[in-house]
């Protein structure tokens, strides 16, 4: 009897031990599973942090630029042209324009590099041995255009000396910022030894100083003068496209959503439209680019590289997003509101436009901003409609050649002068991300404000 009891007891102890061991194992696996999940989140958050830190670390230096302070003398010995044409009586606009252009062409034929060279030599310490090619490598190649433009604007400068700030060349800036390894030998350096020594000397004397790189925001893209390449043209091109997207996509999208949600009879056709919109939202963006190339450019002969075409393509891409979001918002409006309106004798159209749609305004606004922000970063379709052409002008109308911010990033990352353009590309990315963050912030702020009021 006691024997049996003790075996029973023994068995129960054994069982408890087994269960305890099993529980320990199960709890261990529970903890492992839980921490795996946490690890996944940490990894995902880590990627976000890494991405931003990496871009900012790479891009921040590009927001400073090195300026060379020069005393430029408009030497009549070099600037040897007739005085600027004055408009005669009875001369037609076109003739005056032609004379003026001829004068400017004559000016352009002059060797303005000599003016720059003289000023640079004046800025160098007396007796510094350097040949003119190395000397000119310090200032960016567009310095001569800058000085010439100054003279064209004010021909009375002939013979005078003025203080001018010009950009240091991309190679000089690489050297100053340390983008290029300073210990590399002469063969691997882009600047000659005297030029490098002179740059260091000028930095020490304050003839070269660093300042905020406004040129990124105020200049257009440039190939010959990489240091002066800026985002203005791309930015304006993007603005034109966003304007077109907003003007077209919002009314059409909202109208389509209102029709589908409120008016459409349940039929084959509306089912088809519905499936179609859902699929359209998931079509790869590059396919929209192909549509733009074939339909807008090849068939309708709209101009290549124009923000108009880009805007149309992005509109078609954004439409499904806005339609889907607006439909969701319409669906969320309480039936009581509709029935109250109908009960008071409003027609269906009045009910929708006077009562239902105003309530959904915050959601539609948010969806619009998010859709536009998404369209803002889209690159692939724009490449196919020719917006990756090099454009060195600010597009004045949506029909002019232009490029866009993300395409500018694509173009800059492919530039041969890697040392200089890698930071500049990262800086352009920072500008793009900043615009997107601002748009998203505005969307979040407006939504919270408007929803509180509603």
């Amino acid at each position: 009897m006691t024997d049996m009891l003790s075996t029973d007891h023994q068995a129960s102890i054994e069982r408890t031990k087994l269960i305890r061991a099993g529980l320990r194992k199960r709890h261990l696996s529970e903890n492992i599973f839980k921490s795996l999940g946490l690890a996944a989140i940490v990894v995902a958050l880590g990627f976000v942090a890494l991405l931003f830190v990496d871009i900012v670390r790479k891009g921040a230096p590009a927001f400073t630029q090195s300026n060379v302070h020069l005393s430029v003398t408009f030497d009549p010995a070099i600037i040897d042209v007739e005085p600027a044409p004055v408009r005669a009586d009875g001369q037609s606009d076109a003739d005056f324009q032609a004379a003026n252009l001829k004068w400017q062409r004559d000016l352009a034929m002059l060797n303005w590099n000599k003016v720059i060279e003289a000023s640079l030599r004046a800025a160098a310490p007396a007796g510094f041995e350097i040949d003119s090619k190395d000397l000119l490598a310090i200032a960016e190649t567009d310095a001569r255009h800058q000085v010439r433009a100054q003279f064209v604007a004010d021909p009375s400068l002939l013979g005078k000396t003025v203080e001018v700030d010009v950009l240091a060349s991309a190679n000089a800036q690489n050297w100053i910022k340390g983008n290029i390894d300073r210990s590399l030998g002469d063969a691997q350096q882009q600047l000659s030894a005297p030029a490098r020594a002179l740059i260091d000397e000028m930095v020490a004397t304050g003839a070269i100083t660093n300042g905020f790189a406004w040129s990124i925001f105020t200049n257009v893209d440039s190939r010959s003068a990489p240091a002066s390449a800026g985002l203005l043209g791309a930015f304006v091109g993007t603005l034109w496209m966003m304007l077109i997207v907003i003007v077209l996509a919002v009314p059409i999208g909202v109208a389509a959503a209102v029709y589908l949600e409120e008016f459409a009879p349940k039929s084959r056709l509306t089912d088809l439209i519905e499936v179609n919109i859902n699929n359209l939202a998931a079509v790869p963006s590059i396919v929209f680019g192909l549509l733009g190339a074939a339909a807008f450019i090849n068939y309708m002969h709209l101009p290549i590289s124009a923000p108009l075409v880009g805007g149309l393509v992005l509109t078609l891409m954004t439409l499904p997003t806005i339609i889907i979001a607006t439909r969701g918002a319409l669906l969320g409006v309480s039936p009581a509101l509709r029935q109250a309106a109908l009960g008071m004798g409003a027609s269906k159209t009045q009910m929708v436009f006077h009562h239902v749609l105003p309530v959904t305004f915050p959601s539609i606004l948010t969806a619009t901003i998010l859709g536009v922000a998404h369209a803002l970063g889209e690159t692939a379709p724009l490449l196919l409609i020719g917006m990756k052409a090099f454009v060195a002008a600010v597009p004045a109308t949506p029909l002019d050649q232009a490029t866009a911010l993300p395409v500018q990033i694509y173009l800059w990352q492919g530039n041969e002068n890697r040392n200089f353009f890698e930071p500049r590309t990262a800086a352009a990315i920072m500008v793009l991300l900043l615009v997107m963050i601002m748009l998203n912030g505005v969307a979040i702020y407006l939504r919270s404000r408007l929803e509180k009021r509603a």
Partner: protein
Amino acid sequence: MNSLIIAGMLLVLLGLAYQSGWARSRSLATANGVKVHSRPQYHGSYVAIWTLVPTIVIVILWAWLGDGITHNFIVSQIPVETVQSLDQVGLNATIARIKSLASGYGVAGEVLPYEQTAGDALRSFQFITFLVVIVAAAVAGVAALLYARSRITARLRARNAVERVINIALLACSAVAILTTVGIVASLVSEAYKFFTFIHPIDFFFGTVWNPSFSSTGGGAHGQYGLLPLLAGTLMITLIAMLVAVPVGLMAAIHLSQYAHHNFRAVAKPIIEILAGIPTIVFGFFALVTVGPFLRDVGGFIGLDIKATSALTAGVVMGIMIIPFVSSLSDDILNQVPRTLRDGAYGLGATKSETIRNVLLPAALPGIVGAFLLAVSRAVGETMIVVLAAGNSPVLRGNPFEPVATITVSIVNQLTGDSDFAGPQSLVAFALGLTLFVITLCLNVFALYIVRRFREQYE
């Protein structure tokens, strides 16, 4: 300038029309004391719509035909023998000179007498035609206005008419979505068909060599356009991307929806979703300058030959990009599994992870598979990351450490925007686009079908 005048005239006309309809309706109500069917706004809109239609038709007709008429007029003003002596370029230059004379800006150099007379004639012609158009439009508008106004009676169902117009406009807007799809399919199919007249479809779909030769346009040799290397590259990068995104995304979704404190969830979820909002060109740059060199160094450290731009680089970064896509879709789907299933498992003594692994995940599996398929479709159609980081080497091989090319990369390379769509070199982009479109469409339709079935199961 002219278009501004026309727009201004149109606005004034519309305002007048609206006002007159409104006033007329008002006077009906006050004078006779009868009950008017529609409110004054509807009568105003009714008249405005009537006015708008003929005016717009005339303006559009002029915009459509005007240039041709002006051109013919200028040519008729140039002496016949001069026209015959000029070639197309010379004629266009002469026309441009005449136009700039007519605009009063003048031209540089000697003005020929016939140019001067043609310029003067053109100037008066332009003035007269503009006047004719604007007067015709205005007259048509006013006539329509008066007609519509005369129709206004107390019994006129203006509201119904206006609402019908609104309805038609709304329908037209929702038809844009259909037109987009039709446009995509039509342009892809027609251009791809042109491509297949150069290259046999079998050579395209089953060819193993991708070597489009740009050098020999017009000659017999067109190069080789085998799809398989590109397809293999696309699939390899997609596979790598999914290997990164699925474990991370799914585990993150499980943790966020089942374990995490709601405060943590409220912070972590939007931060992860930031990844979905970053433009892909940014990921491409990140892959090119940071991830690629890092992987190459790691490979060098452990003795593997990993290229900086390779399928691995592009795949890993694309995987990062899709993480939020996988995680938020899975999150939604996990939340849709009924609570009773979970509670039942807890009641039987299961731990949280056992419940998730043995109950939640099997129940949510169809939906999660659907989410994965949507993510695959995203990865297949992704362009900028692979353009920058995959290295563009269209060779059929199975090594993920080597550069590859994908369908999207080849589309971008073949169609640069300034090609004239004449040869297979640029047309192949449309055949590739068609392939891509069909692949992603099938994936999407299938995935949406699965997700919908799953939803119905628990509703």
